[in-house]
């Protein structure tokens, strides 16, 4: 429990259809180095998982494939090296399947901060995009509403990187409805920079959460204002950090206090 605060499960949900070749090549070169630098600086117990998605038949044979979480970043690097970008068929892809697979099939740790980064250049099926072979809805039966609900229930915050304007609307909705952020990038290097910014910000929160948790464990009766003063932080930051800690079950409420 003591070290659970440092646990971060990070899943990349990546479109691996043909058009994504450039980004995957850039990720193969830069991603692991970036993650190693960030995790060492922030003392983070990181596990990395990958979900690749393409499209439903007959557009593509592979809908999605999951690569389980691993704390061995070299192993993750090998997985990234083995990703190949191909196929895809029509413009929209099996984005919804990718998110559902990440939420349901990856084994998230109980107390971990759960993050996913959705990377793609095409919208999901059934959201009104042109040239959609499944214009009435994705064959998986999911919608943006249902997958964001699933992500909220699984406590996964999804950030999204949209590599074309076509993905902007749906990726913005998926990220904002799960508490994440959307970034637009037109080039692979730009996408990696956004990732770096995003993870630095997330890991920055973790540092505050760690301090708040330590202070709370020392004195569970401490008020938010006292905490803010003790940690030289603002009331808003401390209060939000506490909610994150409750939500990760790192702080548990006395049974009698629950009004739920």
């Amino acid at each position, binding site marked *: 429990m003591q070290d659970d605060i440092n646990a971060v499960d990070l899943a990349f949900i990546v479109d691996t259809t043909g058009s994504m070749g450039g980004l995957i090549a850039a990720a193969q070169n830069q991603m692991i180095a970036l993650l190693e630098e960030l995790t060492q600086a922030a003392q983070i117990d990181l596990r990395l998982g990958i979900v690749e998605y393409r499209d439903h038949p007959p557009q593509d044979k592979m809908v999605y494939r999951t690569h389980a979480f691993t704390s061995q970043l070299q192993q993750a690097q090998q997985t990234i090296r083995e990703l190949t970008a191909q196929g895809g068929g029509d413009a929209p892809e099996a984005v919804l399947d990718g998110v559902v697979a990440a939420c349901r099939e990856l084994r998230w740790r109980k107390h971990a901060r759960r993050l996913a980064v959705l990377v793609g250049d095409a919208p999901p099926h059934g959201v009104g995009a042109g040239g959609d072979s499944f214009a009435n809805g994705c064959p998986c039966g999911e919608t943006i509403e249902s997958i964001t*609900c699933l992500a*909220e229930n699984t406590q996964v915050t999804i950030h999204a990187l949209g590599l074309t304007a076509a993905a902007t609307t749906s990726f913005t909705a998926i990220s*904002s409805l799960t*508490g994440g952020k959307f970034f637009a990038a037109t080039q692979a290097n730009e996408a990696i920079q956004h990732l770096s910014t995003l993870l630095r910000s997330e890991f920055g929160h973790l540092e505050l959460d760690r301090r708040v948790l330590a202070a709370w464990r020392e004195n569970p009766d401490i008020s*938010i204002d006292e905490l803010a003063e003790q940690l030289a932080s603002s009331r*808003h930051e401390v209060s939000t950090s506490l909610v994150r800690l*409750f*939500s990760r079950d790192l702080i548990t*409420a006395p049974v009698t206090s629950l009004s739920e």
Partner: protein
Amino acid sequence: MPRGGAALRFFRDLINKLVHPASGHSSTHEVYSHDHEVMTMTQNLEQDVRVEILNSFLTTPHRKLEELAPLHTSALERDPLFYGHLAPWYFDKGEVRDHKLLFVSHMATSDYSEFREAAWVLLQQLAPYEVARVLDHMKRVIGKTPRSFKGAVAHYLKTREKNTKQFDGAALRARNDLKHLYASLRLRPGSRAQAILFDEQPPEDSALFALKLLAKAESAEEQAKTILDHKIPYTTAIGAIKHITPALLVALINAMSPQEVINNMASLKRRGALDDKDVKALIDQKLAEATSDKRVSTLKAKKAIEVAKLDEETERTLTEVMDKRVADKVEIKRPTALFVDKSGSMTQAIEVAKQLAALISAVIAAEFRVYAFDTATFEVKVDVKGDKRPAMSDWEQAFKFIKANGGTSIGVALMKMLKERVYVEQIVIVTDEGENTAPYFRNAYEEYAKEMKAAPAVIIVQVGGASHGFSAGLQERGIELMRYQVKGDEYYSLPTVLHLLAAPSKSELVNIIMEYKLPERPKQLVAK
């Protein structure tokens, strides 16, 4: 937009409505098109502009005039009638100073003489440093300083020169700003102003002379006497004194207004004012005076709490000051519900909800219910004894162990109210608008409206998120809606929401604003 001669008729009509608002302020109004036909602006268009301006009240960071300026420019262009009424209303009711400066800047540079006239009057209410900021904004951002503005500033400065006490106070606090106004607009100061501001030869009866005495004083007793005798302001004196003793602090605090005590709380704390029993007692006395001082700003009190990190007792006193000030200003008479989105994406909403719950419960004179929801809902109940109103600490306790998790069904809270036959006339929803699970609010609303024979106004306080789908869905169904965005920790401007909740309905609030007349100079001043 009308052209040529029709434009003249349009503006005459506009000004007529501004000066005589009682002559008509229905929710739609008529303007003349270029071919003399009557054209009706849609209610939606009016509402969009008006709600956009009102929205900005909640999301205004201080001291960023240039970022807010486009909002004023756009509002003035799109709905000058409303803008003209909004300015005097905002001077009366608004809390964010930047907006007041922008109203003056934009009206003073307007093409309508009646707007310039109003700016002339409103400018006289500003402090010297605010007038200097208006001038800078007009020069740098708007790019013009009309002659009428120069006249307004000339009158402003002459009025202050005539009142030596007021002028000396202004010179102490804002000497550079006053010099800037005289120099930039090439206005000739009176002999006394010239001596104080430019020649650095303050006359013996002036406060600046007293400040010189203070700087020369050798003992703490002498310094304290000089401060008391001349009522030297804290911020001015503090720069002239090297070592602060409790006796000096007493002298300084005595010379302060309640608002100044609040503004300088962090500085006073740093100088040990809260550690000395007698000095702290004096501060408490000043704070007690603040509850009945109409000049005290609730926003500043809130910021003082944030910045100064005060001890519990002083913070409670200051919170009481703030609550009392808010309570003095508004009273919410309509039964109200606050819905708090606690879904997985809403870690920031819970703090905002606490703040809102505390503010609303301090001023409401009707039933008030708070519900937290994800895909299920429960009522957040606060435990207070007797007739006392719940304080922030009570809400803190009530929200203490609420987690952010689960999907989002905003409708579920309304369905619970329907099931329990709870009647409200307005619903405040703190959310990211990411409703993704049934029962959906729009459907629940229709059912509630039908069963309860009610049409509650909906006020969305959006925290995080970038989705507009939820509010767009409500608007499509004709549900009365206001929407505010709270970014980061800017929730200190939430008290402004109370004005809107206190108005019986949005259209009535617009009507209240439309009742405000454009200010005009007294006739004897116009003659001059």
